[in-house]
């Protein structure tokens, strides 16, 4: 068991990358749930997307997924860029109307 532990420490395999991505994912969840600043929530979402991306690429490196995993990672990055642009435009509009970006205070459906 001990030898196994040391070996598993020594050489980063698939599980290591997956664990890193799991920790990043939970931190992202934490940011999304506990922060009320819209931009902070956006940053949490970026972190979650990144952790998912690590998973895809780790699978593409260590399993038979091969380059398809990297392809999906590429598309995730593209979609994250589009999401960030639109989301920040919305945030700026919201700020212009309500003078706040606290998520609890902008629950009205009608501006």
């Amino acid at each position, binding site marked *: 068991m001990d030898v196994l532990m040391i070996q598993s420490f020594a050489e*980063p395999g698939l599980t290591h990358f997956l664990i890193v991505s799991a920790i990043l994912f939970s931190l992202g969840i934490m940011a999304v749930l506990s922060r009320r600043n819209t931009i902070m929530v956006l940053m949490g979402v970026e972190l979650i997307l990144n952790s998912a991306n690590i998973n895809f690429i780790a699978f593409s490196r260590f399993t038979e997924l091969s380059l398809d995993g990297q392809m999906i990672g590429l598309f995730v990055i593209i979609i994250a860029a589009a999401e960030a642009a639109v989301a920040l435009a919305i*945030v700026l509009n919201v700020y212009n109307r309500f003078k706040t970006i606290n998520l609890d205070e902008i629950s009205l459906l009608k501006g």
Partner: protein
Amino acid sequence: MELTTILFYLFSIVTIGAAAVMVFSKNIVHSAFALMFALIGVAALYVLLYADFLAATQLLVYVGGILILILFGVMLTSLGYTFNFRTITVNLVPATVLSTGAAVLLIFAFVTTEWKITEVAERPDTVYDLGMMLMGDYILPFIVAGVLLLIAIIGAILMSTRLSAENKGGT
């Protein structure tokens, strides 16, 4: 220990530490800069996973684009002064419980699963293969992603121009 191993642990620690600073920092600009370190660490992890093209894309798009957008958002939406960027934290207990639960569950699942690992040789030319795949199997998602980006750009520009028009009319 091999160099790759040292680099893996180094960059994992940097990534996770920076992400933790991002989540728990009170100052939102500090959070944004911590996110930068996390993103750079993730790019380094991509390199260790033989995804050099993706690592460069990560740097270019996330660090050079999205993060600057976020910083602009922070600067434009915080009232006035440079250091008045504190944000409030709510739901601390449920959020902690939920995220820790998610982390424990995920790690348990990852460790116990028997992955079918096929050790690939190094990939010397991912760019060429990725380009070929983009123009072959993935041509439809590629076009759809292009259209999506176009729509996103037009939408963002429309929203922000309306914003400035309102500003001119309102005040």
